[in-house]
């Protein structure tokens, strides 16, 4: 039983375990258990029976696409790296996982580290690299420990090091630690960070496959991407490419969170609908409230609505709907969520995480945030909505790296799907969901008020006046919207709107 992955013991019927295949099943600190479940069989097969190009062809045929966000075909990436010749090449595993709330990569590394190591060795063989590097955030001590143990054990078993499987192929892996900046997960930034330089992206091309770590051809893949490799090579590309949709094969792990009953990691075949994930696996909305939106793709994904619920999840459909796969964040929102605040929340994150290299992201996102903040305070104007959209489009259109190119997505998708909510904020100065405190007013319902004076006594700023046994009045100029009166009134005579 899978215990460390959250609460999906009930409804696993939609789930297929490929990337999470061994997680929770084996003792990750014991290589024998991995081997017992056909671990390192794929590596052996590749080294002894397949030519590097055969391996690449198999991965290409499987249709596997990168799970780190971009969805780039993995086999093609390996092929490009294999064709760039150099005295030294590198295989890098991107375990930076900077999305707040994401923990799929961590779970894989903690639960099944050998799968990633095996995959990196296979990749090394296919592209002609002898060195592997795992870039892992320092905040993942358990994953780091397990990786270290796994590398040690693999070396002992001759599965890493010199002359693997008695062939001429050498491959070894080292760890590199990231300080946890989100943008260091972007591959060029990650490489600079490993080189001891400032963790900021550079323009591509050149891609890492041409000029990567220390200027050498480098293949960068995500943890989950690697976790798919051994099983694909064991069971064959044609097994794998039967799962999923036409252009997105296999499964995807999501970190389901927000206002759903069951939260945690989910691995579903590509093509599963959002409805299935949210209602069947997630068990529906918490407290049986009304579903409002689901945000996929991490901090710079978009917010999708009711009308998207039956969209089969894959790379292209999510993009077409105005969101993205990203690394697999999935946050569900209900009727209590204000969508302007949601957009603001995500912008706050991107403003914090921008590296500052390019002006649209460094300054533009800040300006987006400021404008959203004003709107939530009731200081917005109708013309601001147009500005919001223009700034968002320009930031997307002109930013240097994926961070800025996607950071306005929460704004654009909420503008598209919840325009009325924005309008309510700027024209009526109201927040329909009641989340924006500055836009709420507390007042007394005359019919219910008995004049008990309880509210007036609890108000910390003396905003409430009224004679005993007479209807009370809340002065909106003084009220600080602390909600103390509403809580105190036994007669439901105070409401907020």
């Amino acid at each position, binding site marked *: 039983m899978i215990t460390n992955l959250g609460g999906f013991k009930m409804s696993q019927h939609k789930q297929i375990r490929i990337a999470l295949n061994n997680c929770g099943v084996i003792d990750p600190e014991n290589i024998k258990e991995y081997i017992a479940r056909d671990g390192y069989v794929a590596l052996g097969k590749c080294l002894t029976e397949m030519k590097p190009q055969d391996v690449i062809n198999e991965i290409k045929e499987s249709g596997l696409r990168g799970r780190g966000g971009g969805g780039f075909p993995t086999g093609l990436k390996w092929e490009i790296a294999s064709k760039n010749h150099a005295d030294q090449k590198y295989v890098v595993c991107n375990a930076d996982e900077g999305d707040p709330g994401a923990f799929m990569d961590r779970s894989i590394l903690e639960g099944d580290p050998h799968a990633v190591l095996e995959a990196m060795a296979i990749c090394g063989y296919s592209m002609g690299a002898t060195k592997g590097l795992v870039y892992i955030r320092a905040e993942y001590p358990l994953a780091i420990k397990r990786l270290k143990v796994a590398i040690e054990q693999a070396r002992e078993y001759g599965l890493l090091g010199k002359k693997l499987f008695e062939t001429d192929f050498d491959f070894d892996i080292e760890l590199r630690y990231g300080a946890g900046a989100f943008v260091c997960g972007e591959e060029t930034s990650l490489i600079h960070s490993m080189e001891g330089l400032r963790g900021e992206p550079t*323009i591509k091309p050149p891609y890492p496959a041409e000029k990567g770590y220390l200027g050498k051809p480098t293949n960068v893949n995500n943890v989950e991407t690697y976790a798919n490799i051994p099983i694909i090579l064991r069971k064959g590309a044609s097994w794998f490419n039967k799962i999923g949709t036409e252009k997105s094969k296999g499964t995807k792990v999501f970190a389901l969170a927000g206002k759903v009953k069951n939260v945690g990691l989910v691995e579903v075949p590509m093509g599963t609908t959002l409805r299935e994930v949210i209602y069947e696996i997630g068990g529906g909305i918490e407290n049986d409230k009304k579903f409002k939106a689901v945000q996929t793709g991490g901090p710079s994904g978009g917010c999708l609505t009711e009308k998207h619920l039956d969209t089969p999840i894959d790379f292209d459909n999510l993009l077409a709907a105005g969101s993205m796969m990203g690394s697999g964040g999935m946050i569900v929102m209900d009727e209590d969520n204000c969508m302007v605040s949601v957009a603001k929340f995500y912008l706050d994150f991107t403003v914090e995480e921008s590296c500052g290299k390019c002006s649209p992201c460094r300054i533009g996102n*800040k300006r987006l945030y400021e404008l959203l903040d004003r709107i939530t305070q009731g200081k917005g104007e109708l013309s601001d909505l147009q500005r919001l959209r223009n700034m968002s489009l320009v930031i997307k259109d002109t930013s240097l790296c994926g961070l800025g190119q996607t950071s306005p997505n929460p704004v654009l998708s909420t503008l598209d799907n919840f325009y009325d909510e924005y309008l309510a904020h700027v024209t009526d100065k109201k927040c329909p969901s009641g989340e924006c405190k500055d836009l709420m007013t507390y007042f007394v319902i005359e019919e219910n008020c008995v004049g008990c004076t309880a509210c007036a006594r609890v108000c910390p700023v003396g905003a409430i006046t009224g004679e005993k046994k007479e209807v009370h009045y809340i002065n909106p100029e003084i009220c600080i919207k602390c909600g103390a009166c509403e809580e105190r009134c036994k007669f439901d005579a105070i409401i907020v709107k």
Partner: protein
Amino acid sequence: MNKVKLTIDDKQIEVEKGTTIYKAAKQLEIEIPVLCYMNLEGLNIENKPGGCRICVVEVEGRNNLAPSCSTEVWDGMVVHTHTMRVINARRTVMEFILSDHPKDCLTCAKSGNCDLQNMAVKLGIREIPGQEYAEMSKYKTDFSPSIIRELDKCIMCRRCEMMCNDFQTVGALSAFHRGFQAAVGPAFEMDIEDSPCTYCGQCVAVCPTGALTEKDHTRDVINALSDPTKKVIVQTAPAVRAALGEEFGMEPGTLVTGKMVSALRRLGFDYVFDTDFAADLTIMEEGTELLDRLTKFLAGDKKVKLPILTSCCPAWVSFFEHNFPEMKDIPSTARSPQQMFGAIAKTYFADKISTKREDLVVVSIMPCLAKKYEAQRDEFKVNGNPDVDFSISTRELAHLIKEANLDLNKLPDEDFDKPLGESSGAAVIFGTTGGVIEAAVRTAYELHTGIKLDKLDFEQLRGFEAIRKATVDFDGTPINIGIAHGLGNARKLLEEIKAGKSEFHAIEIMSCPGGCIGGGGQPTHHGDSSILKARAKAIYAEDAGKPIRKSHENPYIIKLYEEFLGKPMSEKAHHLLHTCYFDKSRKIEID
């Protein structure tokens, strides 16, 4: 197939593979606006971070806009440089940049010469939406003897960083903080004074805004000029005359020696002298030192170290004091011309005009910011009184002239005053890379061999290549000469010496690209290296036209030795004209 065909704004062009859209467009005479990008062609100095995003263009088939400065063309590419989408994006990005920029143009040192201001004009920016509530990134202003850093005006173009790290290999500047607070400066936000900065001023030379400017001494100069108790004299470095005209709309490469002299006289200086006089003096001292070391070395004296390195560039002096302190006995001990001038002015000349040292103010006009720092070094003070009181840059002089309502274009040509205004052609070429060593060779050759040179132009020592090597035949003795401009190039030669692999007898080092003509105090070149080349040409032209072209033939130098110094390297010369160096290497301390 090394050519690719593409279409830009409906025009076809074929270019080399690897060309950027920006460069391809330029060949079609389409000038795409750039801000962070800078390319000093022929000098191997290129800044291409792709950061400002002003240069974006639309490329068919591409999702987002492409930064033209750093996007390579491909075969069949179709580019549009001014669609509504591009224009809107460029304007919006510019509004972003300006929204985080102080609107200080009225009082900003860079005003009129500022790339950002020019871009705002070009794009016709009239308002910045949301400015009322836009937060601005704030930093403390950092003052140093040479440079003022006002990072509120930094636009993160990274030019300074590229200059300091890649070209100079000083490594004093790097990006710090992230996101909105990101800017460029010394590590841990320490003051530039506490960093390994050499004050070469190259960061200032390339900064597109007023974020990096010189420490301005024009007020001090005006105060001195208006003080009736002071005699104020001025010296002008060779590179100044080849660039000052640019500030008055003249073609780059226009020599304005005579007009500059008359402007200085009209500004009220009591004597207008020439640093070139001191450059001749430098050659006498440094040339003698070279010959002395060389003779001993060739005679087999193991105690003598070669190569000898020139020492007239104060940024270079700081550089080896910081980075190669163990080699501080290799450079010549000769002071820079600026300091030699100061020392002679406040002794020999002060006596001649019967003025007390304290009542004589020496101002120097330099293409250089490091000279400001140099003038303040303790070695160059007597009882706290500096040999050179104020060192101002070419730009500051231009400001003084304009403020005095003088139009350089209309001034007559006048001559320098005597005795410290007479100089040889050899001294003039100090202003460009290779010039110091050429000047030294002219003198050393004749003094060493006793033969008169019939050809004074040593073409093999001229040019703009990063590192140049030449062998000069000293009548049977081949002397190997190395030349480097830029401290990164100097570093390469120093590493060779350190490794015992240097083949040179003498090396000239200048910190700035092209030598002093490209100094940090010169009129802004805005990334156009043809300006530097035109200045160099002007310098060689001035040399060629001089009646005296060898330092040891300058009659006033001969007289100075007869009347005052004795002979080169005499005790008095040592005291006044030579210096010593210090170990300034240090670990970075964080407080």
